């Protein structure tokens, strides 16, 4: 049985240290550019790892994993959108931008789950890494489409066609869809995965000290910073409102449950692997999706989605989500 003990891994402890440092208003702070540099490194390293394992993966399972990743990437944000728009609580633009974050994945949360499994010496498959890479784009596309629909409705409120088509803001699809596929994180993850898959294993071995061995320590450093950033967002809770904060807790529960189902039943993964798929569903991206929403859905308030993804859902998953979904996967695969 994994209790609170399992949270005493360095990654989670450094996250907590970051939160505490911020709460006691310490002047601890990362130098300019360091957080971005580290997240760059983490995406590269995780891509290489995924690629190396993909090289000797069962292609049948891999394709299935990719298929269900795409389904999750579309399904989760649609559920989120329905929830947010229920009784018109949140306007369409914000709902679209927020929910896109939940269709994508938080690499840091995912990696913390991996660290959790490794510390507890629980095996896991590598397919979830491939799924993570795949899940960046669909969520962005869903967000952009939902916002485009809202924009259309907005410029043409009644069906009588009084506003002429010319005045309706034209949706420029190509730059937006481009963004979904050429997003920096997508390219870095996907590119590193391909490098990891096609480079010769002997040559890759020279890269491992950098990409594998120092990885966990670098992750700790990143989580320290993310802990500070997450805690900083707490002061925005009152601007964001109770509804959205509640959403930031409910949505990972829904996404995580879907993930457990996909992992255990549809992909037939081990408990460890299923936990990782649950985290794919439960976590909200704060690296790949925010820039895409900034650019594609300027009508939405960035403060909302960053507060939710980073300030609510991220800490929730690290502290509660990971052990919870692990229990859920254990229980569900037992029946």
């Amino acid at each position, binding site marked *: 049985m994994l209790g609170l003990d399992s949270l005493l891994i360095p990654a989670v402890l450094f996250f907590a240290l970051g939160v505490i440092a911020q709460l006691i208003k310490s002047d601890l702070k990362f130098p300019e550019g360091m957080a971005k540099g580290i997240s760059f490194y983490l995406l590269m390293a995780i891509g290489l790892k995924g690629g190396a394992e993909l090289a000797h993966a069962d292609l049948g399972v891999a394709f299935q994993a990719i298929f269900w990743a795409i389904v999750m990437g579309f399904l989760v944000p649609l559920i989120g959108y329905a929830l947010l728009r229920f009784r018109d609580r949140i306007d369409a633009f914000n709902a679209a931008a927020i929910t896109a974050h939940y269709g994508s994945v938080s690499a840091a949360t995912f990696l913390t789950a991996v660290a959790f499994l490794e510390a507890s010496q629980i095996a896991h498959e590598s397919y979830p890494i491939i799924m993570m890479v795949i899940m960046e784009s669909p969520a962005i596309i869903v967000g952009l489409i939902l916002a485009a629909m809202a924009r259309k409705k907005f410029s043409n409120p009644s069906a009588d066609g009084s506003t002429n088509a010319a005045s309706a803001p034209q949706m420029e699809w190509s730059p937006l869809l481009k963004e979904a596929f050429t997003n920096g994180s997508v390219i870095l993850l996907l590119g590193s995965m391909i490098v990891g898959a096609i480079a010769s294993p002997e040559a890759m071995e020279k890269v491992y000290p950098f990409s594998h061995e120092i990885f966990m320590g670098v992750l700790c450093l990143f989580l320290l910073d993310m802990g500070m950033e997450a805690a900083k967002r707490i002061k*925005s809770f009152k601007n964001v409102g109770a509804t959205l904060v509640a959403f930031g807790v409910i949505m990972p529960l829904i996404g995580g449950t879907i993930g457990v189902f996909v992992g255990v039943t549809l992909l037939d993964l081990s408990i460890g692997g299923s936990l990782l798929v649950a985290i794919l569903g439960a976590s909200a991206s704060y690296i790949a999706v925010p820039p895409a929403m900034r650019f594609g859905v*300027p009508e939405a*308030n960035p403060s909302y989605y960053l507060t939710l993804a980073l300030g609510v859902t991220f800490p929730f998953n690290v502290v509660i989500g990971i052990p919870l979904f692990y229990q859920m996967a254990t229980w569900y695969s037992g029946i």
Partner: protein
Amino acid sequence: MEISTCTEKMVQIIANSTLEKSLKKTLKEVGVSGYTLFDVRGDGDSGDQSGHLEGDSNILMMVVVPLKTSQNLMEALNGYLKKGHHLMVFSVDAEVLTPSKFG
């Protein structure tokens, strides 16, 4: 004075770093070929821009241009504001030592 200077407009545009590529294109369209870029942090209506993440970073573009160009630029930037983008734009009179730039 022996040194010739001319009076131009220094325009500063503060925006999320996501808009960098797009703003560069806009500058080109209004005929601005030179600019200076600062990586900055900030705060405002759209929340704390701490510079830790890609969606969370501001840039400041500074261009020195003749009055006419600055007006065209302002008009083009107004388009961003209408779309909902969070820009902060202002201009200041500047005496420029390098008049060759504005032939």
